[in-house]
């Protein structure tokens, strides 16, 4: 706890964005150095309904990475099975990719699945999971990608995010997830940590994807979000 408290004292700040005049999607994703980017264009998605679908399955979640966290659980909608780990852990990645499919979880969550098939702007889905962090739970500071692989990549969607539950990136600041639902692209080469100091479980959805031929759809969402965020 001391480690977390110290980390929170040092890094739980507001991140200040500086927006260039011209929208440039490649710059935003690859070169901006931004630790996260809110996809405001998705603000009106049915996050509450999706939260309800996930919450209804809360007793089905699997313990996740208990070696550096507490109360962290996951349930896979799209992957190899309902408890899919990082894809590189299964050997031949190409073979693994070909085996990816919807799990029974997606069948139980039609609104969420519809969002992923009809709205989410990528041609392919890799692993998509609900991530639940119990009250009092935490994920210790860690990074999922090397320092030299800085870019915005995975999408982290808060289906809820109660007060006093915070996602903090080292040297960058707090990701302003919304309890009513919000989607962010994340640069997970930053050290990050989550601590749920509320009395409610927090459920997010993390999407790993491959843009494929929907790159212009993705740019559209990015551009709409950019101008909304910039104000």
């Amino acid at each position: 706890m001391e480690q977390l408290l110290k980390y929170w004292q040092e890094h739980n700040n507001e991140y200040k964005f500086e927006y260039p005049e011209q929208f440039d999607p490649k710059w935003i994703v690859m070169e901006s150095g931004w630790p996260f980017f809110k996809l405001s264009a998705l603000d009106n998605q049915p996050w509450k309904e999706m939260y309800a679908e996930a919450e209804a399955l809360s007793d089905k979640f699997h313990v996740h990475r208990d070696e550096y966290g507490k109360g962290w659980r996951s349930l896979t909608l799209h992957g190899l099975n309902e408890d899919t780990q990082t894809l590189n852990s299964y050997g031949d990645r190409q073979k693994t990719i070909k085996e990816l499919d919807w799990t029974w979880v997606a069948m139980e969550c039609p609104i969420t699945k519809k969002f992923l098939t009809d709205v989410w702007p990528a041609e392919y889905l890799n692993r998509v999971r609900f991530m639940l962090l119990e009250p009092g739970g935490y994920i210790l500071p860690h990074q999922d990608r090397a320092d030299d692989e800085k870019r915005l990549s995975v999408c982290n969607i808060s289906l809820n995010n109660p007060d006093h539950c915070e996602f903090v990136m080292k040297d960058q600041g707090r990701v302003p997830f919304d309890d009513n639902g919000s989607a962010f692209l994340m640069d997970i080469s930053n050290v990050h940590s989550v601590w749920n100091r509320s009395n409610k479980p927090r459920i997010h959805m993390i999407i790993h994807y491959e843009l494929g031929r929907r790159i212009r759809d993705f740019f559209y969402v990015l551009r709409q979000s950019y101008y909304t965020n910039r104000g």
Partner: protein
Amino acid sequence: MKDWNSITVDRYWEQIKVSNDIAIGILDTRRDIDSEIVSKRSFDMTYFYINRMVKMGLSKYVGSYTTVQEILERAAKENKKYCMVAAQGLLLYRGPSLVTQSLTYAEKNPNFFVVGHIMDKKKQHYLTKGAYPGLHRQYLFVNVAKWIELGKPVFDEMGVFQDRKPILQNYEMSANTMNSNYTPAWIRRAGGTTEYPVTSDGSNWIDIALRNDIVIENLDNDMRDCKVYLYPYIETKKLEEVWYEKDVEKIDQLSNQSQKAWLRKLQYQEYIEKDRVYVFNTETLSAEGVRTGGKTIDHLFTAAAGFKPLAILNANGFSNSTTVHYFDWCESSLNYKKHLIETWDGYDLDKWLLEHDLDYNFSSTYRGNYKQFWDQEVAEHGGSLAFQRLWERYRNLRHEFYVCDIVNESKKLFDEINKYHGTRVMWTTNIWSSEMLHWNVEPEVLEIKWKQFEEQIPDDLVLYGHDYIAVDMNSRVRDGVQLTHPKYNES
């Protein structure tokens, strides 16, 4: 020789004897355009030029869709052999010429699949670095039967891949390029395949064509000269700023050369249009035929352009008591008419024009070609003597002149018309369907203004000219051909 600025039905066209085998659709790219104004107006103007081709009987408009395959499906449903796909923002200002060239190409290359802008920007473009070549989506000319034979492939958009890189046919490209060093003249099959992490728009069409031993050719320079693409998704806000207010300094700040050149052209056109004089007509002189039912014309209300008023008088018949009422928003055009009637004897107009060349801003089409145009005019009027006799009768008529903008001051025109009785004829040329008007005023606004104009047309007024979408006014008003334009928000 051609005045591309104002043609709807052009008298100077070579005889275009082509069957109506081409469907044409607009590729809706509004998702990528960061300005409602530019998006809508580029859609409007793309349709404007397509409409000309449709009205000339050269093609069939099949609608606006967000995917190429939807347009091709519509073309197939219409049993068209070929399909032009024009992205919104493509201005086919010499579309009829592109039609004839494309049909000639199709005849010589019956096995072709598509003609398009082959793009090999793997070195230049930061988004498509290392990409397989593609086809720019601004314009595609597709052999519909071949598309069906190849399995109706969708036209892929550009893509980036990490785990699912497509394996594509190796290719060979021409050493010679069109326009830029990233636009090869052709691309054809080479042995083997390669995995690509980045693809371009239409990469899959190239792959499919090459796998089937079909060569894809780029547009040649003559084809390129028939159109302009506004790239409405590039520097969109700057384009929006100069769309209506064509400030030269702001136009020069556009970094896209295509946008800059087109806006400069429009800016200059708008500038000279203010006192531009049309000595000759760009539309056919007498295609509409006799419309007064055998009665001689008592009053002709006419735009002050060319000799078409004489052709109308001559075709329908007139008497010594006939009055010609000229209206025009351009006072110079009226002054020219007065001057010509007062001083010209009906012979060798080219010489009169050269003598007065500095007094008027004659249409740039004709300057330097006076003799050539005059010879054609005389020939169409039945020879020099016939024209001179007609001119002598005509110049002795009573002439009235009114400065009047009939689009915005239609009441003024009809108040004048309603003062007179007898057989009354009106000719408005292509005022309602002209390029500058449509660039500056949305078709929805023009439609309202047109309807206000139309409501005031007296029942017995004989009509020549076009409505706002280039439908013959007589057909619209008397025969009920009440067409409208495609609405951007309904497409």
